[in-house]
Structures are given as structure tokens and as C-alpha cells.
């Protein structure tokens, strides 16, 4: 409403900035997926004492581009017995959900871009006051992409992959939600911007007021459930090669396959960004002024992403029943106890 009081020019500029910001986030997410593919291959090579991609571009940096071009020129195949409509819809759902979740993630403090705008603009596509729940809702919708891909392919490997994915995501969503809830209690808000705002400053002058120091177990639960939610190793059962060929995307080729691939990497980036906002203080950090906070944000997200990749190439895959046991019998009770202890702490000590 404050915007309405300004002149027409300022308003137009404000909306233009908003549109530019949205496009910027979209393009950066696409880029981050490409960079992550390169990082993934380079780190994998490092850990396996290989060179990794090094021919295309400097240090193999253009390898993802070459991969995309290759995928584009591949033939788009569809099994004869597949359900044509759903087969086409599934990758679209996956990719859309991956992008949509990032819309409510703030990644920097409000800025006027060095006086370019009259009104400070939040570095966030949509400032929703129930942002945490929106992320949770979008995550729960992204199951459909995988399930439908598995079912509509009409192939047993795909169906098994799809079923596994949905069972896994439903199981770990509970722990994920409970870990989120304990942060919400401490942040006393459902808005990510508010929760990040509460993590400014330090305790005793040198410990940053990040929630990870108050919620270490919550952070571990969140990250574990996040790995399972994004179907990454060591929880990558939906696409376990040895058992299921390629899982739910066995029958997909060309750009439809690329959409699933893209969705996986963007989901990773989103989970890392949400973890940064919730537990690692978002854009708050020492040495840099508030307006350059996004540099801290990028650093923190990159650190978590590196950890993801590192874990993938270090840990072997679990067995499927172990995954389910771990989710229901260890992680979920732990998350519940964590939530209760947090609630008691907030109630009696006013944390």
C-alpha cells in the first residue's frame, strides 16, 4: 500500500524491478542446475581420482551446455502402451514444482539497488506470510510428477520406481514437517523473512544467532529428510540403477528426461536455500554490510550443495527396508521428541 502513495513512475519502476527479479531468479535457477551438474562431475572425479570433464571449455565448464545440446537432438520416445497425456504431463509437473518452491525463498535483505529504486525491494519473488507452508505444499505436490511418470510409462521398472519414490517422500515428509515446526516455534512466525530476521546479531559477541546452534538435531533431521525428499544418494531408491534400470524415468528420453534431471538439481538448490534461511541465518554474516548479504547466502548454499555432492559419492546406497525403518522408527520419533522439547523450551524458558 505504501507503494500506491508514490508517483506513477516509481510504481512502474517498482513493478519492472519485480519482473526483472523474477526472471533473474528463474535464469539463475537454470544456471545453478547447469553449474551443479559440472560440480557434481568434477567432485565425483576428484573423489575417484579421475580428471572429470576437461575438454569442453576451460576446465570443462561448458560440459553441461554440451550435454543439453546433445539431449535436445535426441529423439523424443514414447512407449506404445504409455498414457500419452500423463506421460507428457509428468515431467512438466516435476519441473514446475521445482521452480515454484523457490518463489517464496528470500535470498537477501531489502535493497534499493544503490538508489535506483525509491522503495527498497525484497530479494524474494513473492513475500507470502505462510512461506514455510507453501514450500511444504509444493514439495508434497512434486510427488505427483514422479508417481505419474512411473505409472504412465506402463513399464514395471518405472512403476516400481514411482511407487518407491512416493512411499519414500510421504514417509520423510513427516519428519521434514516436524523439523520445520520446531523452527517455526522458535521463529514464532511462518514467514521465512521473519525467521531470517530473528537470526541477526550474535550471542556473547562472537556466536552468530543462527538457529542451527539452538536446533542442532532439528538441522540434522531437516537435512536427512531433505536428501530423502530430493531422492539423492544415499537415499536414491527411485532410480537405483542395479535394481530398477533408471526408476521412474526409464522410458523418458531427450528433453522430457532433461526436465526430470533439471527438477532434481533445482530441488537440491531449493532445499539448501531453505536450510540456509531456516538454520544458518540466511544472509546474515560478519564482515559484509547488509546490502551484500546475498554473498553470504550464496556461500552458505554452496557449502550445503557441496556437502550433498560429497555425500553422494562417499556413502553407499542403503537397502530399501532400511530406509523405511530409519524413516519411521528413528527419524520420526526423534523429530517428535525434538518438537516437544522445543515447545517446552519456548513455553518455560521463552527461548
Amino acid at each position: 500500500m505504501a507503494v500506491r502513495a508514490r508517483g506513477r513512475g516509481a510504481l512502474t519502476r517498482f513493478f519492472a524491478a519485480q519482473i526483472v527479479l523474477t526472471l533473474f531468479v528463474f535464469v539463475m535457477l537454470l544456471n545453478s542446475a547447469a553449474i551443479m551438474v559440472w560440480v557434481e562431475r568434477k567432485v565425483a572425479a576428484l573423489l575417484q581420482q579421475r580428471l572429470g570433464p576437461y575438454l569442453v571449455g576451460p576446465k570443462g565448464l561448458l560440459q553441461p551446455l554440451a550435454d543439453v545440446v546433445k539431449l535436445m537432438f535426441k529423439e523424443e520416445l514414447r512407449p506404445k502402451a504409455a498414457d500419452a497425456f500423463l506421460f507428457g504431463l509428468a515431467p512438466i509437473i516435476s519441473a514446475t514444482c521445482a521452480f515454484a518452491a523457490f518463489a517464496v525463498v528470500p535470498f537477501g535483505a531489502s535493497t534499493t539497488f544503490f538508489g535506483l529504486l525509491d522503495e527498497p525491494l525484497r530479494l524474494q519473488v513473492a513475500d507470502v506470510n505462510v512461506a514455510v507452508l507453501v514450500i511444504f505444499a509444493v514439495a508434497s505436490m512434486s510427488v505427483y510428477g514422479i508417481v505419474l511418470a512411473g505409472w504412465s510409462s506402463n513399464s514395471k521398472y518405472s512403476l516400481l520406481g514411482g511407487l518407491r519414490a512416493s512411499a519414500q517422500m510421504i514417509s520423510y515428509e513427516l519428519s521434514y514437517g516436524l523439523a520445520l515446526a520446531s523452527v517455526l516455534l522458535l521463529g514464532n512466525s511462518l514467514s521465512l523473512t521473519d525467521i531470517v530476521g530473528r537470526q541477526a546479531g550474535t550471542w556473547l559477541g562472537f556466536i552468530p544467532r543462527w538457529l542451527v546452534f539452538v536446533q542442532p538435531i532439528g538441522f540434522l533431521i531437516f537435512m536427512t529428510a531433505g536428501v530423502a525428499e530430493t531422492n539423492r544418494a544415499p537415499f536414491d531408491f527411485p532410480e537405483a540403477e542395479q535394481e530398477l534400470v533408471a526408476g521412474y524415468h526409464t522410458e523418458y528420453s531427450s528433453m522430457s528426461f532433461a526436465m526430470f534431471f533439471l527438477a532434481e538439481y533445482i530441488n537440491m538448490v531449493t532445499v539448501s536455500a531453505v536450510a540456509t534461511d531456516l538454520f544458518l541465518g540466511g544472509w546474515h554474516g560478519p564482515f559484509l554490510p547488509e546490502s551484500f548479504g546475498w554473498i553470504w547466502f550464496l556461500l552458505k548454499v554452496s557449502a550445503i550443495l557441496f556437502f550433498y555432492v560429497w555425500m553422494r559419492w562417499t556413502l553407499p546406497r542403503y537397502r530399501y527396508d532400511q530406509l523405511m525403518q530409519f524413516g519411521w522408527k528413528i527419524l520420526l520419533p526423534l523429530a517428535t521428541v525434538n518438537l516437544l522439547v522445543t515447545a517446552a523450551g519456548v513455553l518455560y524458558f521463552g527461548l
Partner: protein
Amino acid sequence: MTLFYVFAAIAVVASLLVIAQRNPIYSVLLLIASFGALSGLYVLLSAPFVAVIQIVVYAGAIMVLFLFVVMLLNAPHEETEADERRHVLLRSGALRFGAVLAFALAAELVWALSQGRDTGAFPGASVASVAAIGRTLFTDYAFPFEVTSILILVALVGAVVLAQRDHPLDRERP
């Protein structure tokens, strides 16, 4: 107002298509679309919390289970009943009961709409604030809230008992 008609149209059309579909998978997906449109309507009523919960609970959790069941049963098309051409009230057991319920629902709807009076705002301040919703649920509506949770628990226990393969009561019989 335009948005209201868009969402309302999607909700109504999707709901109608749910029962018009022969393929149960498409019925489930159309129901999800209908829930999504409802959620949009909640946003227009400035109740974002309810809107998101609608997606998380109904579209995200319950419909995934529906989809699961439909996929596992792998029922590609609905069986066409032999007595399709007879009048609904003349059909056997469950169908007749369903028809009676449907007529009752239609009658109630007509009655409720013909009253046409404003029911007034939702008691307990605004539905926009999560804190207000929580406070209302645990004070004014504490009893219905707890009763609902017991109802769900009973349904849960019932489902477990029904799904049990070797029932302890069956084992005693020869």
C-alpha cells in the same frame, strides 16, 4: 471478481469431470485440480493459511494415497454395470443407498441456498492469522476439534483391523 469466476469454474468443471471420467486415475487428478481451485478461492477470501493447508492435506497427502490405491489396483476402466439402464432407485443395495444420499444432499443444498441469508463473518477475529485460528480451535472449538481427532483415530484402528490378514477372531473358528 474475475479471478473468483475463473477458480469457481475450474472447481465446478473439474468436479463434474471427476464423476464423468471412466479412467479412475484421471478422476483422481481432476479432483486434485478441483482442490487446487478451491485453494485459490481461499486465497481470494484472504485466508492463505487455509489455502495452503488445503493443498498440503488434501491435494498433497490424501490424494497421493488415493492415487496409490488406484495405481496398485490397476483398474483401467470402470466396470459397466449390467443394470445401468434401470432407474437409479431400482438398482441393487449400495447403488440405491448412494442415490438416496445424493438426493438428500441435493435437497439440503437447495434448502440451504434458498435461505439466502448472510451467515455473517467467521467468529473469532480473522482467518488470515495463524495465531487466531489456533486460539479459536483450542478454545471455542476445542470439543469438536478433539472429537474429530478421536473419529480419525477410530477410522485408523478400523482400517488396521480390516486390513489384517489373519484375524485373531477367525483363528479360533475351525
